[in-house]
Structures are given as structure tokens and as C-alpha cells.
């Protein structure tokens, strides 16, 4: 088939779509909405996982907890020191952290002690400064928490502790905006203040962060650590990665599951419009055959028609999904996928979309659509034009 002839067929395909304007528009809108919904959920879910993965890259290789009576309990510092002696362990650092309920915001905040050996190079994460390890009465807070409490750098913040007056700290730093997803409810304080706020005695820690000489040895060291005391629970990075995949995958599954009726309606609409040849279309194909078009010409024209609609809907759907997720910050979608929160962080996600993913979405949308369009057209084109016109 010559290029000129093919271009003519393509032109005819566009004209054919224009002649059936309402029907073509309904197909385009149905497919576009379905692509936008599925792609929007996938894009936001992938971006959330990527955010967590970046923090995971610098997180400790292992975290050792202690369970007593089935609940997390404090780890004695003597046990923490014993980990240093395990083969393959570079450093074992006890950490003090926990939750504190703030009545003024009706929500929990996460109080964390500063651990300079772990957070080296983290000064840039706050506007102001992280509290020095020995500077009691100073803290760094998440941007959303600071906004909710109406405090800025230099202001005094009173946190409830076991005394009736509460403990106060001067806000030394506020976490920068791009880190809102990781720091919204954080209060970073020196270790002595964390112990006082959370009621952790001086000879215990919440958990132990373990850094390994070779991260690949995590399973071996985990077993050795667990063998030291059966009440210990060791969390390695593989588990954290799996949890994130499950949590965000499950949320995306919930949202897509709830959208199934809408998706089905949109797809059925598109498929019905694409595959159901009406009487006028059958007549049109019969007239084309009678006026000298071959079955091949008819199929080429119908294929191009489906490609125009399929690629158009894929591109438009992806564009809408991308704009929804990353230009408008996923309104309505982010809370469903990221989770509910009293201190809701501003969700400015970074896209992870690749060309391969974009082309895959296009192929998954366009190829079935082409098949659904071309098969009935072939059946109609294979009929004798005279008998088709008489029907």
C-alpha cells in the first residue's frame, strides 16, 4: 500500500470519526476517564513508595525491639551494648522515641531524641538548627505541627509530660517544606529531654539501631541477635520495604476496588461504542466495498480510526492523571492513598513516571481497543456488499 493511499485512508478515518461526532466523543471520554483514574492511583502510589524508599536508603540496617507480654517494651542499655560485640555489627545505637498526645491538636506527635551518630549531615533538614545533644530545652518541630501550634523558630513550646506544668522547649528549628511527608508530626529533642517527656529511664532505650559492616549479612546478624534473647524482635530493611509495598499497594487496591463500578461503566461504554457496528456503519462499509475498496483498505481505515481514539485517550488520560497527581497535588486521591492524619502534611510528590510506563499504559489501552474495533469491522467487510446493503 503506497504512502499516499495510506494517508488518504487515514484522512477518511478522521472524517469518519468526525461524522459520528457524539459517538466518537463518548468513546474518547469513557476511555480517557478510565485511564486517568487508574493512572492517577498508580502514579501517586508509586511516588509515595519512592519517597519512603529514599529515607529507607539511609535508615539503620536493623532495628532491634523487645516485646514483653506481646507488646513493645523498653530495651535495657546493657543488651544494646551486647550487640556491639556481635560479628558483622559496625555500631549499635540505642534510640529514645515515642508518642505524646497533644490535647491542643487532639492528636499524637512523635517525639524523637537526636542521635548525632545517625543523623550526621542532617542539619539542612531544618530551617534554624537541630537541637544540640546536650542543649536541654531546645527542639526542632515539623512544619505542620509548628503551623498547628502557631510557633516559629525562637518561640517557646510547652509539651505535656508527667508533671502538671508540662515541659517547655525553645523551637530551634522547623523542618523544611519538601520534607513534610517525613516530618509533619516530629518533635526532635536532646536525649535527656526525650527521656523526661516519654518517661524512659536512663538505663533503657525504645529500640536499638544497628549498622552493619555488610548490609547483606542482615539475616545472619538478625538470627544472632534474636538468639541472644528470645524476647527480641529484629526488623530489617527487607521487612520495611515489604511493609511499604503492602501498605501503599493495599491502599491503591482499595481505591481501585472502590472505583471498579465506575471503571466498568466507562469501559463498557467505550467498548460498546467501539465494537457495536450500527446499521449506518454497516451500510457505509458495504458502500465502500461496492465502490472498489478492498477488505484490506477497510481494515486499515478502521485500525487507524481505533489508533486515533486509543492513543488520544491514553495521552489525554495520562496528562490528566499527571496533572491531578503532581501539578494539583492529588486532591481527593492523596488522603485515600497516603492515609488519614490530624497533622496532614502538604503532599508535594515527585513523579517516578518513565517512558516505558507511559508506553505500557498506551499499549494496554490501545491494543485491546484496536482489536475490539477491527474484529467486527472485518466481519462486516467480509460480507457481500449487495446482501449487506439489503439487510
Amino acid at each position, binding site marked *: 500500500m503506497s504512502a499516499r493511499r495510506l494517508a488518504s485512508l487515514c484522512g477518511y478515518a478522521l*472524517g469518519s470519526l468526525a461524522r459520528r461526532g457524539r459517538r466518537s466523543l463518548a468513546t474518547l471520554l469513557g476511555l480517557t476517564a478510565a485511564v486517568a483514574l487508574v493512572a492517577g492511583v498508580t502514579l501517586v502510589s508509586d511516588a509515595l513508595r519512592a519517597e519512603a524508599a529514599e529515607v529507607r*536508603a539511609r535508615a539503620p540496617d536493623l532495628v532491634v525491639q523487645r516485646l514483653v507480654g506481646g507488646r*513493645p517494651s523498653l530495651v535495657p542499655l546493657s543488651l544494646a551494648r551486647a550487640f556491639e560485640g556481635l560479628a558483622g555489627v559496625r555500631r549499635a545505637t540505642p534510640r529514645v*522515641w515515642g508518642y505524646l498526645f497533644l490535647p491542643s491538636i487532639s492528636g499524637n506527635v512523635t517525639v524523637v531524641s537526636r542521635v548525632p551518630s545517625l543523623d550526621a549531615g542532617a542539619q539542612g533538614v531544618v530551617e534554624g538548627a537541630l537541637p544540640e545533644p546536650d542543649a536541654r530545652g531546645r527542639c526542632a518541630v515539623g512544619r505542620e505541627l509548628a503551623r498547628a501550634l502557631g510557633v516559629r523558630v525562637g518561640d517557646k513550646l510547652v509539651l505535656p509530660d508527667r508533671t502538671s506544668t508540662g515541659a517547655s522547649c525553645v523551637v530551634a528549628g522547623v523542618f523544611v517544606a519538601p520534607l513534610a511527608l517525613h516530618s509533619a*508530626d516530629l518533635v526532635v529533642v536532646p536525649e535527656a529531654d526525650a527521656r523526661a517527656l516519654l518517661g524512659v529511664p536512663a538505663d533503657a532505650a525504645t529500640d536499638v539501631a544497628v549498622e552493619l559492616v555488610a548490609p547483606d549479612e542482615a539475616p545472619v546478624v538478625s538470627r544472632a541477635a534474636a538468639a541472644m534473647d528470645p524476647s527480641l524482635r529484629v526488623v530489617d530493611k527487607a521487612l520495611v520495604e515489604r511493609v511499604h509495598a503492602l501498605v501503599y499497594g493495599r491502599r491503591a487496591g*482499595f481505591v481501585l476496588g472502590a472505583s471498579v463500578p465506575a471503571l466498568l461503566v466507562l469501559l463498557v461504554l467505550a467498548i460498546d461504542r467501539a465494537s457495536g457496528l450500527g446499521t449506518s456503519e454497516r451500510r457505509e462499509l458495504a458502500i465502500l466495498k461496492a465502490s472498489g475498496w478492498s477488505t484490506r483498505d477497510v481494515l486499515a481505515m478502521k485500525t487507524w480510526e481505533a489508533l486515533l481514539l486509543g492513543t488520544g485517550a491514553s495521552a489525554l488520560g495520562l496528562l490528566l492523571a*499527571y496533572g491531578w497527581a*503532581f501539578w494539583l497535588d492529588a486532591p481527593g486521591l492523596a488522603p485515600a492513598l497516603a492515609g488519614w492524619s490530624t497533622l496532614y502534611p502538604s503532599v508535594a510528590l515527585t513523579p517516578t513516571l518513565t517512558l516505558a510506563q507511559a508506553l505500557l499504559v498506551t499499549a494496554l489501552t490501545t491494543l485491546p481497543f484496536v482489536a475490539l474495533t477491527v474484529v467486527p469491522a472485518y466481519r462486516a467487510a467480509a460480507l457481500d456488499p449487495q446482501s449487506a446493503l439489503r439487510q
Partner: protein
Amino acid sequence: MTRRALSVCLPVVALAVLVALPLDAARRRTARSWALTRAMGGVVPSPDLAVSPGARHLRHPSSEEPWAAFTDGPATRDAAPSGGMLAAPAAAYREHAARSAR
């Protein structure tokens, strides 16, 4: 523009959009200061995102014990707004336990 030319241009425009979006995504990834995000790995108790603080197993799901969702009794639902939607990731805990036992 003739209909013939338009019918060829439309898929080209669609493909251009499909190529432009990943390019924009790559530009945004490059512009983002990931070093700061990674540095948070040494500040936060776990790499979980700071959302869903309604219940322990929702705020830091990766560091909670497997039965955190049922902390008040066997198979009880927790009262957190998102608790009904998201259980503790027990499957991951089971896999981890099996792997550690080997």
C-alpha cells in the same frame, strides 16, 4: 490543515505528550534535593511517612509488632479513622519470621 494531514498529526501529538510527561518527571526528580530526604533516614525512627498517626500500627507500620492492630483484644477493630481501612501488614511479618527462622 487538510484532514489527511490532521489524521497523521493527532497521533504524533499524542505520542509527544506521552514522551513529554516522563521527561517532565525526570526533570522534577533531578531538581528535587534527595540528599535532604535521605538525611531524614538518620532522624526519624523509621522510614514510614508521617501520615496516619491515629494508631500505632498506622503511624509506623514497619516497626510495629504483628498484632498491633488488635492491641485491645483479639480481632478488635481500632478506633482510628483509617484503622478500619488498613490492617497491620501481617503477611510481611509472617514472611519475615519465616525468613529469619531459616
